[in-house]
């Protein structure tokens, strides 16, 4: 399958990634190769076959709905690249 610049841009946006210049040329070619490689699956007869979705034989392992503190707020914020005492911080959305 032919991958266009538009496809790369669209998929990159969905994946929240950016590719510019040489990196974009490279990923376009690589996607084309990888997706062609995947296309051999079309040769397998899957008429009347249900997709296999769940690998675990466990079903609905229910537990009592008991509230507990597994992580404190301080712990949750601990690894944030930027934070204040109560919140994760992100860069300003609008510049004044």
């Amino acid at each position, binding site marked *: 399958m032919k991958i266009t610049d538009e496809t790369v841009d669209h998929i990159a946006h969905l*994946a929240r990634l*950016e590719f510019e210049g040489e990196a974009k040329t490279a990923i376009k070619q690589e996607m084309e190769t990888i997706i062609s490689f995947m296309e051999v*699956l079309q040769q*397998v007869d899957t008429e009347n076959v249900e997709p296999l979705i769940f690998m675990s034989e*466990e079903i609905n392992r229910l537990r009592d709905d008991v509230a507990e503190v597994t992580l404190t707020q301080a712990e949750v914020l601990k690894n944030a690249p930027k934070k204040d005492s109560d919140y994760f911080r992100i860069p300003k959305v609008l510049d004044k």
Partner: protein
Amino acid sequence: MYRTIGEVKAQLSAGKTVVSIVQDYLTEIEKQKELNAFLEVFTESVLEQAQQVDEKIKSGTAGRLAGVVIGIKDNLCYKGHKVSASSNILHGFESLFTGTAVQRLIDEGAVIIGRLNCDEFAMGSSNETSAFGTVKNPLDPSKVAGGSSGGSAAAVAAGLCTASLGSDTGGSIRQPASFTGTYGLKPTYGRISRHGLIAYASSFDQIGPFTNSLEDTALLLQIMAGKDAYDSTASSREVPAYMDGALPSKIKVAVLKESFETKGIDPEVVSTTEAIIADLRSKGHEVELVSFPYLDYVVPAYYVLTTAEASSNLSRFDGVHFGYRSPDAKGVEETYKKSRSEGFGKEVKRRIMAGTFVLSHGYYDAYYTKAQKVRRVLQTKTDEIFRSYDFILLPTTPSTAFEQGGVKDPIQMYLQDIFTVHANLTGHPALSIPFGNHSNGLPFGIQIIGKPFDENGLLNFAAYLEN
């Protein structure tokens, strides 16, 4: 060095302390630093742990793994310690809890010596996608140690820890085990809880041990296996006593005919497998070549499904909640895009893009649903084989460890996993045991796949093959 749990126990009985055993390993790690197996050695905490275990030994309350020194792959969470999945995007991240498998080892007296290098987010077959450099094969430093759990394999082969943990999504335990002459087990999907394992492809990922003996593999599995309140996919089946020696008097083994016809397979790998077949037959066992005409499809099916799951799992790395954030980003969307684009390495981005594509509108059914159907076909056909046979036998890898930088094309690298992805696609347990000694001086493994949850049978059969 102490290569097995038995050797550690013998030293402890002879009066050696856990602290001094740990110190011996620390010295060895320093000596073999150039292997690049460890991303970080937990010197302070491991010595502290060792001291505690020494006290427990004195008071007679030590567990089954007292003094056993374990290294963990850098995608396993251990509270208060860094974990990075060998990626820059997790720069500075520290685990807030300890994963179930690791905790169960600690509860039995094991001490955790450090975190081991791996391919970035476990995506690779040579450890070359790590953001922190390749791991060298201790048996020949010009060769790779395999991947993605390259550091875990190298550390056990080089005697830098008694055993280690890795994770196996498509062969990431068995392939490096084959390349380093160690034992590597991928348990049945769900046998060991995945809680605390950084997810790559959740319907494939399994934690498993690297060891220098089958007894050690059995014991570590025994301790880590079993249901877990933190992972609803972990099986609630009872954990049997592993490696009880029970085997049918006539073992029925299927050998996948097509595995011998794989392009580029090393003739010595073929002849070793044939020798095992002949030997088993001479002892009265039934070994047959069985056709499994799907070998060309296993790797493509694996890549559709794992990249799809990865694209979803890795969306949590957003530059906001933890890890790396691009310093130049403005606004939320740019924060996501720049942090992810700068933080992830090439192979990870390649897989996220492929996975996002197969899940995208207009392509979902043709790629993703199709691959899920192929997965069903593979599982059904594999279960059919197991209706007539006890085990499937095949090589672990088509060749011995390759040169550093020797495989450049992504597809050629993906095909390194041709014999291992099968068990992850179908969920069956699979074990690689060191078996071959190639004329090039390097080892290679033989792989046994078993019935679901028959790790006991796998271990018994492996022990039988060794004797």
